[in-house]
């Protein structure tokens, strides 16, 4: 059942990425190009998503528990450690080079562009290396 619900939610998320144009690296890179052909679309996508999520979370988190699973799995850490700076800095460089972050890259698989087929396996290898490092040096779960 959770598989099916998640499949539908992944579909909704993915359609959101495609409808908003965020599955197109050219649109993302143009947002990141402040001094060139700037396209502000990405700011509106994040703003709209944050507004809905902010309001929705306030309603949902009033409940004692989610529908299944018993508890809400919310990140507990509040401290700013080195990894919450170095990780995003490394991620940001890759995002600026390719125009893909993980969600749009996954939606792009079926469209089969050469760059996507190069990017995705490399992304999985990169994730796995960091995942194994985290396992060797345990911390609360990734959000």
């Amino acid at each position, binding site marked *: 059942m959770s598989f099916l619900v998640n499949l539908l939610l992944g579909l909704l998320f993915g359609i959101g*990425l495609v409808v908003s144009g965020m599955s197109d690296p050219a649109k993302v890179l143009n947002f990141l190009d402040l001094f060139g052909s700037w396209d502000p679309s990405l700011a509106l996508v994040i703003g709209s998503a944050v507004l809905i999520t902010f309001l929705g979370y306030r309603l949902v988190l009033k409940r004692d528990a989610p529908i299944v699973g018993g508890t809400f799995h919310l990140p507990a850490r509040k401290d700013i450690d080195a990894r919450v700076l170095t990780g995003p800095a490394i991620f940001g460089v890759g995002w600026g080079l390719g125009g893909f972050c993980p969600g749009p890259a996954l939606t792009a698989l079926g469209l089969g562009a050469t760059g996507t087929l*190069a990017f995705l396996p490399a992304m999985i290898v990169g994730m796995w290396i960091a995942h194994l490092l985290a396992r060797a040096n345990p911390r609360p779960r990734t959000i």
Partner: protein
Amino acid sequence: MTEFTPIASLLGGAMIGLSAVLLMLWEGRIAGISGIAGGLLPPYRDNAFPSRFGFVIGLMAAPLLLMYFTGAEITQTVSSNVPLMIAAGLLVGFGSIYGNGCTSGHGVCGLSRLSGRSMVATATFMAAAFVTVFLVRHVI
């Protein structure tokens, strides 16, 4: 050159937000794509594999179903520079897991929870990406 698309951006963003809210309502999890995709890789720390697998399949199916049912053409310009895209993929994969989140986990869900860590993370990856694109397009 891409066109500024405010209505489509707000609509698509709302769908992304709705998906994140419903995932929290359903099983109490953050809709962070790097966490969801990274959680498919062993070793496993919990038993949420079927959920994560379902979410990723849904993401991958989205453009195909959209094209099939609406006949819409999905425009996409991806660099075909293979070494560049491999390097980008390694950095995105490593950095998003090492920093506990990406555009969705920190950028959408974290900011919505007013998490200080996510605000720092989002400001950092945005700054790194702005600088990278500036260097690639205007300096190198």
